[in-house]
């Protein structure tokens, strides 16, 4: 029999190879076609999404203002020993470059960037320019006399530091930290802001998510048990808010919740309340309206998952001796986890970036991260700070997504 076996196996190796080659060729062709089909989307994603986000994120570490305005001064400072005040040539170059910067309109950006370090630095270029002697005359002594800051070695060290092309300033500031003499330290308590804002954003998003799950789960469960026609009609009602603009919905909550609004008046007329409840321009208003707006995002994925769960599972559990409550808890509930996590994650991610609703319905203590992103982009034009805060949001979302992927993997295996 060994001959027969050898005879059988010899051609099969060649055949297997040939078969695998053909299989690979097929697969490659299939992959090529698939790539071609998703190419338009890919181009759109790269051009319209990845590139802007990437370039914005680099803005959070870029530090071009000083380097652009004072390139030669920085070059000279590179060879400076840092123990004594710089030489005449450095003072001279600084003065000339500041003049050029004023002529080219770079002075505003330079002043602003210096101002992020300290308020006194902000006025330094202007002070230098106003005291600058005429061309040819020695600059160093005049400036040290008239602009006391230039007599301080620290000022020059800071200037040299600011000339680097990248900075951790914005990212540190986004976590209420600062660089102080080469060490990362917490900022003064009265200046700390963003960690609190971050905590607040996370708290509000978490509360909204919990409220959405508590309200949405029973509703989705009930919907999934309705006959198809009624379920479709009710789903339209769930989706109805989507057809109204976000601002209109938010504004109508003001109408409903304000102290002279529908809810307060009704409660007072019914004798339940003596004086109106403060329901708007505080945390309550933010939570109520965000929960309302985000609820469909929880219900839809949950409904889809629940719709796919055969009612026979619960019956089987009951027939095996489980109380209907136990059957629900041990057999039905675990099968909806995937839907709950998907919905909750969606709600949380959307909630943590909310801007309009807290801005309109919240008080000053209810503003979330996005409010400050908007503030830095629209009001102070501080792209570094805006993008560092935006990056913070992005990291939180990516982190959550990673957690979700880790959690949902065992569920996928079981399904």
């Amino acid at each position: 029999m060994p001959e027969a076996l050898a005879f059988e196996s010899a051609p099969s190796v060649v055949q297997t190879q040939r078969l695998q080659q053909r299989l690979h060729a097929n697969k490659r062709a299939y992959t090529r076609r698939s790539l071609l089909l998703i190419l338009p989307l890919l181009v759109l994603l790269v051009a319209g999404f990845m590139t802007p986000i990437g370039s914005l994120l680099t803005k959070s570490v870029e530090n071009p203002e000083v380097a652009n305005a004072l390139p030669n001064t920085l070059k000279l400072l590179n060879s400076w020993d840092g123990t004594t005040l710089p030489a005449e040539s450095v003072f001279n170059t600084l003065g000339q470059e500041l003049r050029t910067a004023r002529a080219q309109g770079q002075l505003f950006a330079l002043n602003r960037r210096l101002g992020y370090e300290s308020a006194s630095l902000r006025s330094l270029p202007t002070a230098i320019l106003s005291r600058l002697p005429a061309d040819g005359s020695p600059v160093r002594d005049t400036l040290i006399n008239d602009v006391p800051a230039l007599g301080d070695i620290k000022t020059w060290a800071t200037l040299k530091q600011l000339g680097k092309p990248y900075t951790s300033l914005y990212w540190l500031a986004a976590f209420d930290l600062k660089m102080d003499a080469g060490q990362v330290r917490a900022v003064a308590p009265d200046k700390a802001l963003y960690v609190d804002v971050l905590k607040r954003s996370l708290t509000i998003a978490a509360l909204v998510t919990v409220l959405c799950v508590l309200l949405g789960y029973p509703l989705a469960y009930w919907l999934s048990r309705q006959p198809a026609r009624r379920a479709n009609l009710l789903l339209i009602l769930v989706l109805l808010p989507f057809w109204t603009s976000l601002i209109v919905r938010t504004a109508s909550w003001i109408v409903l919740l304000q102290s002279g609004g529908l809810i307060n008046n009704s409660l007072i007329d019914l004798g339940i309340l003596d004086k109106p409840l403060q329901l708007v321009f505080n945390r309550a208003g933010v939570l109520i309206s965000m929960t309302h707006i985000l609820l469909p995002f929880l219900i839809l994925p949950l409904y889809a998952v629940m719709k796919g769960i055969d009612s026979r599972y619960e019956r089987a559990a009951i027939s095996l001796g489980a109380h209907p409550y136990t059957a629900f808890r041990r057999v039905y509930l675990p099968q909806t986890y995937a839907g709950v996590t998907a919905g909750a994650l969606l709600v949380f991610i959307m909630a943590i970036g909310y801007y309009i609703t807290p801005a309109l319905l919240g008080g000053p203590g209810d503003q979330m991260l996005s409010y400050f992103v908007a503030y830095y982009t629209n009001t102070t034009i501080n792209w570094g700070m805006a993008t560092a805060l935006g990056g913070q949001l992005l990291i939180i979302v990516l982190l959550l997504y990673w957690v979700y992927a880790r959690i949902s993997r065992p569920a996928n295996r079981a399904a």
Partner: protein
Amino acid sequence: MTSNSASTFVRFKGVEKSYDGLKTVVKRLDLDVFRGEFLTLLGPSGSGKTTSLMMLAGFETPTQGQIFLDGIAIENVPAHRRGIGMVFQNYALFPHMNVTENMAFPLQVRGMGRHEIETRVKKALEMVRLGDLAKRFSAQLSGGQQQRIALARALIFEPKLVLMDEPLGALDKQLREQMQLEIRRLHRDLGLTVVFVTHDQAEALTLSDRIAIFNDGVIQQIDTPQALYERPANAFVATFMGDTNVLPGVLTSLNTHQCQVRLDLGEQMFARTTPGLTSGNRTSLSIRSERVILDGDERYDSRLPGSIEECIYLGDHVRIRLNVSGSNDFNVKVPIAQMQPHWREGHRLPVCWHSADASALDAMPA
């Protein structure tokens, strides 16, 4: 009656069920299931068999009547306290639990200790010969394996009564036959009482001690497989079970055993009487297709001329469709050894049977 009621395990007494108050799905059901018996509820879909099963399991409430389990009325016992094992059509293995967890579930909800659960699960898995699949999830099992696990799960808490709702419907033919033998073995070895729902008559014949044939919410006949097959009580049972030829006619005379039928084209035929017939009524003369002989000799006392319409070759036999007495849907099964080469389409020949094999039944609805 006393000996009978002692062995009665489940009793349906005047049970009715309607979902919408308009249509009655189960009509005045009286049914006794004996201890240790394998009873099959057989019928077309929508005939009320599954609804009856669900009422027994406790998932549906009768609109009228009572169900007794072991002599006790159970309408106030919730489903989870009835202690009835149940096997579902799509197995209903919990997808988020592996095989062991599935099997342990009925024991856990009964508050059994961990060690005893472990031993019992192991034993039950050996019973269905699937010990090596203990850690698999249901998505990783074949249909047959899933069904065996579902079966073992329904039996692990040692119920005395097991209900099966078309448990083999989703399996292919070979696997189905294998599972039928397995279910038979378990029924016999464990001394279970089984109520089995199916619409597959071959399955019912293979498994059952008795079969109850349902149609339109009413039991048409309940008897042993052989009695049902050989002596159908009415035309529905005759046509539902096996291959039956039905020739319409009028009953001209009858006594307790034999009757005479005049077919619509005038031929006079003899047939066995079934209860409830009266002379002069319309009737259907029914004869199993395997009881008919083509071109038979004088020993066959019933003979009619026929002409072949179609021959279908089926390997072990040929199914010949003929035109007989005005009906062109008269089928005969001819074993391959008795097939004649000149029996082709258009050939005319006598169609013969023993009149004792034919029965006069109620008229078929038009």
